[in-house]
């Protein structure tokens, strides 16, 4: 017997040394690596741009209240008390808002209570509620657009234990592990109690696992209920308890636990859960809300207040009772908390916001970060996207395509590869910031981003470049004026032993027209003549300076846009016109911050280059304003968009591409419509793309001040007779204001109307000194 015991002892020792000890060391290494390293892969979070609040903006048209909803703000009728609440004055004279706390990389926003004073829906002042001080630097925090995650999207805001409110800690301990600070890795008393209760109930009603065991299971182990898995869990719990403090373990636990689901996003940690369910900072949750969060731990989906409010309330009450039993709450406090109304945040449908744009951001960052850094290092990426504008863009594209198919059923198809498609990009001409991007009709069908990757013929949207080159007096070259005549009559352009004969739409020709008229009406033949007279090399140079990747093909048809470019390139070129000669590369990522809120690589500052003269760009802009007033783009005005704007329709020869490119001083938008497989659309840019552009621009510019294009030094505006191109007289039946370079401004008056001697100023005939009237001295004075 002693021999057997000795053998058993030796065998046991050998087992411990050869099997258990190495296994223990391995588990220890695993636990230490996880605790000491990065406990979680925190996905990068992509934000849209902050919405700046300044006097003069109209709240409703700029989508202020829908922005609040998406950000999880709750409307209340009482004075705002905690962050995340807002209240509208019944008379519409003010909105009180308690801003969320937000950690901008350079300047934390602590979450201030502010008042927006209104007059007929227009913000007149912003004041801090507490001090009454007027504020000028307030913004709604950026909206989260998306996360970049590897396989599982774990949405989590890591918060140190010191910043977790005591009530939250107490609620969790009370319901999950009330003896956490007393026991070791496992709690024999808890295990025995659970066994007794489960046997009495005839089913599993209580677990005996400690928080440490739960943490080990969540970190490392599967959900399988096997003896081996349980043994490992216990061993790891022992290791953790030996090496780390209770507070360290608890902090990890409270940031680790799974507390719900939002679409593909898992909600992890108490801080994220507070934001998700209540739209609040963790520091602002009430006792009842803390109890509700703690109650979720056992079964987040079953006890979700979103799915089962009654079960959530019951579970919450159980937690409150446990808190009271543990002495964390008095009976009165528990009773009061039970009657608390838990107000959940209003949920906008969890949409995958701006998916094409998010892909574009990912591509931009790929140059600076490997995939694992983007999906695991918790970066915060601040972009230029305006979420409200993005929604307007998606809506305009969707509704626009549907309307086209309704009017032209032959264009509709259920085959995803044959469906009518569109692309829209909107960017700020002075900063290059991309404010909206729609790369296609339906991202779920195809992720092909037509804004950046669809190379299509620009057609007539290229024509402004031809006229730009023709107007340029650079180096003393012969140049045209907006009033110069050009023949819109059939002609043939010989080149390299061949010929090219352009034609107008429906073979209609207008004879001699002005440069202005030729561009306004998008006349192919007149434009070709302009190109012929200007010369391909000058046009190529102008195109490259404006931003087309060069060199463009040197054949005549190039002047009518017979080469390929992307909508993004077209937008960047038109941005040079809108910004009066300044080129800024389109950019999406403004700043990148790490978990410590430090700015890191990846953000792109504003970088500009002056590429062409402001005067020439103004001349072209002035011509393109006429496209909207009188030309092929007049549908814009007919649809009610009346802001100062310029634009150009574009249709390719085979009707394979329909474009509209247009801009205000502050926004450039390009729309393309067509089929991916280049089937003829049969519709012009004015028919297919212009309505989408107009619908978008009406929404995008609503509620903001309108601004006219600045007239640069070196440009003279002259009221002329459009027929003669000379200065208008009172007798001219039709006049327009034309822009000229100073040296080109006409000095002669129109002789065609009203009996004015040719070349004589009407003022020379009628100009008399007022003091001579009735005295007969006037003619004498004039003669002597």
């Amino acid at each position, binding site marked *: 017997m002693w021999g057997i015991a000795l053998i058993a002892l030796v065998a046991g020792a050998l087992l411990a040394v050869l099997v258990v000890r190495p296994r223990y060391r391995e588990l220890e290494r695993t636990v230490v690596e996880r605790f000491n390293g990065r406990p979680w892969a925190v996905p990068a979070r992509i934000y849209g741009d902050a919405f*700046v609040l300044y006097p*003069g903006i109209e709240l409703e048209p700029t989508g202020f209240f829908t922005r609040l909803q998406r950000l999880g703000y709750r409307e209340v009728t009482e004075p705002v008390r905690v962050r995340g609440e807002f209240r509208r004055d019944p008379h519409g004279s003010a909105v009180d808002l308690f801003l969320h706390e937000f950690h901008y990389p*350079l300047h934390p926003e602590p979450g201030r209570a502010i008042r927006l004073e209104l007059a007929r829906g227009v913000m007149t002042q912003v004041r801090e509620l507490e001090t009454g001080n007027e504020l000028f630097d307030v913004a709604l925090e950026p909206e989260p657009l998306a996360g970049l995650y590897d396989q599982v999207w774990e949405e989590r805001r890591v918060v140190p234990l010191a910043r977790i409110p005591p009530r939250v800690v107490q609620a969790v301990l009370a319901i999950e592990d009330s003896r956490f600070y007393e026991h070791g890795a496992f709690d024999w008393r808890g295990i025995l109690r659970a066994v007794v209760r489960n046997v009495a109930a005839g089913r599993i009603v209580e677990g005996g696992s400690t928080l440490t065991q739960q943490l080990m299971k969540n970190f490392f182990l599967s959900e399988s209920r096997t003896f081996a898995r349980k043994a490992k869990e216990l061993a790891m719990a022992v290791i953790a308890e030996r090496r780390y403090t209770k507070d360290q373990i608890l902090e990890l636990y409270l940031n680790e636990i799974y507390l719900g689901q939002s679409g593909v996003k898992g909600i992890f940690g108490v801080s994220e859960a507070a934001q998700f369910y209540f739209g609040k900072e963790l520091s602002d949750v009430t006792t009842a809300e803390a109890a509700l969060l703690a109650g979720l731990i056992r079964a987040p989906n079953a006890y979700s207040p979103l799915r089962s409010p009654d079960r959530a309330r019951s579970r919450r009450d159980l937690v409150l009772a446990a808190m009271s039993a543990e002495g964390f709450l008095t009976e009165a406090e528990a009773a009061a908390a039970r009657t608390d109304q838990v107000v959940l945040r209003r949920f906008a449908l969890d949409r995958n916001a701006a998916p094409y744009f998010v892909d574009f951001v990912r591509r931009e960052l790929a140059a600076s970060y490997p995939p694992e850094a983007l999906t695991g290092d918790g970066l915060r990426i601040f972009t230029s996207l305006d979420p409200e504008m993005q929604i307007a863009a998606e809506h305009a594209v969707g509704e626009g395509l549907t309307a086209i198919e309704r009017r032209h059923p032959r264009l509709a198809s259920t085959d995803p590869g044959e469906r009518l498609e569109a692309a829209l990009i909107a960017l700020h001409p002075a900063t290059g910031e991309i404010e909206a991007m729609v790369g296609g009709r339906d991202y779920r069908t195809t992720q092909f981003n037509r804004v950046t990757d669809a190379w299509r013929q620009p057609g007539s949207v290229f024509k402004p470049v031809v006229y730009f080159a023709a107007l340029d007096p650079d180096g003393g070259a012969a140049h045209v004026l907006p009033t110069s005549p050009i023949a819109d009559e059939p002609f043939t352009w010989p080149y390299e032993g061949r010929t090219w004969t352009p034609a107008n739409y429906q073979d209609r020709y207008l004879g001699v027209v002005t440069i202005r008229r030729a561009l306004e009406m998008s006349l192919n033949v007149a434009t070709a003549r302009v190109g012929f007279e200007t010369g391909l090399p000058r046009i190529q140079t102008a195109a490259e300076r404006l931003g087309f990747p060069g060199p463009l093909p040197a054949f005549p048809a190039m002047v009518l846009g017979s080469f390929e470019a992307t909508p993004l390139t077209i937008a960047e070129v038109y941005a040079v016109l809108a910004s009066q000669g300044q080129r800024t590369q389109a950019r999406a990522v403004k700043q990148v911050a790490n978990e410590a809120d430090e700015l890191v690589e990846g953000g792109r*500052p*504003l970088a*500009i280059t002056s590429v062409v003269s402001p005067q020439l760009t103004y001349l072209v802009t002035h011509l393109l304003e006429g496209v909207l007033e009188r030309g092929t783009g007049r549908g814009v005005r007919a649809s009610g968009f009346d802001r100062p704007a310029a634009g150009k329709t574009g249709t390719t020869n085979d009707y394979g591409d329909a474009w509209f490119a247009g801009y205000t001083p502050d926004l450039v938008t390009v729309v393309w419509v067509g089929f991916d497989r280049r089937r003829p659309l049969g519709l012009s840019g004015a028919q297919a793309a212009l309505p989408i552009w107009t619908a978008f621009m009406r929404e995008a510019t609503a509620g903001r001040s309108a601004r*006219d294009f*600045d*007239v640069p030094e070196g440009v003279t505006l002259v009221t002329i007779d459009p027929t003669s191109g000379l200065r208008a007289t009172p007798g001219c039946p039709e006049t327009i204001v034309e822009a000229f370079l100073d040296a080109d401004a006409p000095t002669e008056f129109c002789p065609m109307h009203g009996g004015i001697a040719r070349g004589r100023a009407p003022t020379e005939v009628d100009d008399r000194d007022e003091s001579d009237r009735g005295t007969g001295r006037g003619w004498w004075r004039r003669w002597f």
Partner: protein
Amino acid sequence: MATLVLTELVAFDAGPSVAAAPFVAAPPSATPYATVPVAAGLLVAALLAGCGAAPARQRSVPAAPPSRAAAPPVRTARSRPPAPPEVPPPPAALREDSGPLTAKIREGMPANRAAALRMTEQARGLIANGEQAHAIELLERAIAIDASVPYAYYFLAMAHYGAKHPALARPLLDRAQQKLAAEPYWLAEVQVLRGQIAEEEGRPADARAAYERALRVFPRNAAASAGLARLGAETDSAPPRDGAGGGAR
């Protein structure tokens, strides 16, 4: 022409001893009594010819373009020595404009313009406090709100210069210069910043040229004067070059 004809009339009346006018010769057979009707006729002809040769009238000035900001009023210096030919005459208003940009906000100013001016002024303070990165963020926002505010470009250039990004600052200064053409004070400030960048990059000639340009447009710019003085002092204190008056090696 009328003068020439009249001169000839006088000469004709005075007899053959008076030299005849170059292109009107005296007829040898004319009698003294025929001069009066001839003179009267010539006088009338002269008067009629003078009417057709009325001096060219000043063309009416074109109407001011609608959107251009009002140019500052023209003031001429009361007494100034003739400017050297290579220096253009001093421009219009030479007012100091170093006050807060918010002072430019007027009743009726478009809201976004006022907001951009405020942001720019706030960024100015951040730059003074050494918070370049925050200033850059704020100024980019100001430009996004209203790109017509020229000062935003100037201060953005200054912030990038302070953050050691001169390559980003230079094109911003070009833009600011374009937009500040009618504001001599600020135009000079743009040149001063160009000069400072050039100094830091070890280009004293470019720096000197920039400071001189600053003083041409705004003679009272102290920073430009100090810059020139500094460059002059550095030149004076530079060691003599080999062979330039020093001893033989």
